[in-house]
């Protein structure tokens, strides 16, 4: 009997110990050095700085401070993810959000927290008052929010210190609700900041679960549709990349009537192609592998695509046979040996010997349902279209359309077409019946006009007018 009693005492004791242990496991702890860094910006954390420890845990900070510290670290840690770091010069970092961008934005506006603001009610999440600049009042609901929502709340609130208030919604889910909307997205008020924070954390946050990030991105779309009285949506800016013989790449939007803007100097002259927002670069030096850069050339992609992968597996001699690449769905790889394209489950080929005439290049002169179409230009100027059929394989079908025989590249931009000729000149391309003819040549004063490449670029934008969607503020170099 006594033994059984002892066992019970033991089991209860063990269960208690396990619970304590489990609680210790769930406790949030932070590197002591990081808490010390945060205390440099938020002096309220100074009492918790302890250099004799490696970690500062929730049991010392208290649950509310632990939540604040966790959120501050999330803000501090917004970093580029899934990218190989590629050495670029600092002055090239025109990226909208540099590594510490959001953190800098926040600490320049906030230096103190009220862990339970005096105007809190069960419904209120957080608030600021204009006459107490720098103080962010947090309420009970803040501590119950998920991490991305907490970070977004802090960034949203500090924007109010600069006089950005809210107005009554004129449409959307909160139509008629006072103080639930901003006038417009371009004014970059608190909701613009919220939306950008949700996207940034939802794409680049490294400490959140994938599902939480997906929720953040989805909520940003909700904000776009419901928080701005002036209707705003995704717009597309089309332009051309022009590359000079020394590897300098310019962005030129013919419809904007502006001179080309230098965006980057490649480490060496190269063939350039665009796919989605990325640029794929095939250096003219055949010993250098192809690589893929993000839309603003600030980082190198880890996955370079099947075409570039295939290229990098070739020997320099085989690479020399490359003539052109087409990155649209009906494009492919054009080499001396023929055409290789994605059809069915993988690459399919047409041998050069099966062509009716030598094929010189790939051009993009038309759109079908807004989608650019790749066409193949023969030595005579005749155009051909690649067709992929699961049963028949790939075929090169002749069209009753012709281009000048000396075209190197040609693209449709908006309603107009532009061509780069073999001798490095740019011309407008005029459609005349079934003929595309060289129109007026395009000259830019003060810019070297020996162009070696042309690629079309599609850039989405939201906040500002189209010219601000141009890549680059200052030109940098890739080393």
């Amino acid at each position, binding site marked *: 009997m006594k033994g059984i009693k002892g066992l019970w005492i033991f089991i209860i004791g063990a269960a208690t110990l396990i619970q304590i242990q489990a609680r210790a496991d769930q406790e949030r702890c932070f590197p002591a050095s990081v808490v010390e860094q945060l205390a440099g910006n938020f002096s309220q954390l100074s009492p918790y700085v302890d250099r004799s420890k490696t970690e500062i845990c929730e049991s010392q900070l208290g649950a509310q401070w632990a939540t604040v510290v966790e959120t501050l670290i999330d803000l501090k840690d917004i970093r580029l993810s899934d990218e190989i770091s590629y050495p670029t010069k600092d002055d090239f970092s025109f990226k909208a959000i540099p590594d510490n961008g959001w953190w800098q934005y926040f600490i320049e506006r906030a230096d103190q927290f009220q862990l339970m603001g005096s105007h809190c009610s069960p419904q209120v999440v957080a608030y600021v008052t204009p006459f107490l600049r720098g103080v962010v009042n947090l309420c009970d609901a803040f501590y119950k929010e998920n991490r991305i929502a907490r970070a977004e709340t802090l960034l949203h609130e500090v924007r109010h210190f*600069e006089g950005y208030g809210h107005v009554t919604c004129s449409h959307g889910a909160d139509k008629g609700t006072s103080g639930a909307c901003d006038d417009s997205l371009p004014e970059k008020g608190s909701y613009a900041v919220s939306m950008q924070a949700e996207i940034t954390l939802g794409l680049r946050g490294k400490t959140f679960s*994938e599902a939480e990030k997906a929720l953040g991105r989805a909520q940003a779309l909700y904000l776009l549709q419901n928080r701005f009285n002036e209707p705003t949506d995704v717009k597309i800016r089309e332009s051309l990349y022009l590359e000079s013989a020394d590897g300098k790449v310019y962005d030129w939007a013919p419809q904007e009537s502006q001179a080309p803007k230098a965006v980057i100097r490649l480490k060496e002259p190269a063939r350039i192609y665009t796919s989605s927002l990325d640029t794929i670069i095939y250096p003219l030096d055949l010993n250098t592998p192809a690589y893929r850069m993000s839309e603003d050339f600030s980082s190198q992609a880890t996955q370079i695509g099947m075409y570039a992968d295939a290229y990098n597996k070739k020997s320099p001699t085989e690479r020399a046979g490359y003539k052109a690449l087409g990155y649209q769905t009906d494009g492919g790889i054009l080499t001396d040996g023929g055409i290789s394209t994605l059809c069915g489950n993988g690459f399919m080929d047409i041998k050069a010997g099966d062509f009716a005439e030598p094929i010189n290049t790939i051009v993009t002169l038309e759109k079908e349902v807004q989608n650019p179409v790749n066409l193949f230009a023969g030595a005579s100027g005749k155009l051909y279209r690649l067709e992929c059929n699961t049963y028949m394989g790939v075929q090169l079908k002749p069209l009753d359309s012709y281009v000048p025989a000396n075209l190197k590249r040609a693209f449709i931009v908006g309603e107009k077409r532009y061509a780069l000729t073999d001798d490095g000149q740019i011309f407008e391309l005029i459609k005349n019946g079934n003929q595309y003819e060289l129109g007026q040549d395009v000259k830019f004063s003060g810019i070297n006009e020996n162009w070696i490449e042309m690629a079309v670029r599609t850039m989405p934008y939201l906040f500002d007018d189209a010219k601000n969607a141009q890549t680059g503020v200052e030109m940098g170099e890739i080393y």
Partner: protein
Amino acid sequence: MKKAFSLALFVIGLIALATLLVFHSPSERGGDDLALDSQVVHEIKPETQKQKKALVPEQRKSLSKKFLDAQLPLPERLDAWLELNRDTRLSPETLTEIALSPNPYRNEKKEPHTVSEMNFRREEGFRIMALQGLEKAALKDPALTKFIEQVSSQAASPTVRKIAGKMKEFVTQGKSYSHLFEQAVLNQEIPQ
């Protein structure tokens, strides 16, 4: 005899306790955690590394119900979403059902900066997540655009209907509205 029995029970209990403590110890956490500079010392499970698996329709239904259950804690609901996405045969019908479903907070008064507003926004977010799943599927297989079209006309939420309309417009051009939106936001300067 009694003493021996008590001692035996004590020893068994001790072993049990030790075993439980070992299996509950912090050493089970990710080994890299402490190496992460200025990062919360958390266990971060890389969900994307988890294996895909085929769910039976009942499992799919139960997970989608869990995902939409506003009474459940957020982490549980997000876990349900991850499980759903690991399904090798995640059906567009499941995603469509989620996207069509009404927001449980639709009739509540949503004062700005309040819990009810955050709740409403989060529930809308869940439906938009499902819609984005359909968008991704339709970009791979244009025949699935019909599901986005269905959401654009039948979703209970006007916001979801509107976004679905936009997505359909972009998907038919082979473009992802969500991706372009995200890139457009990233390409803007943050206020300084």
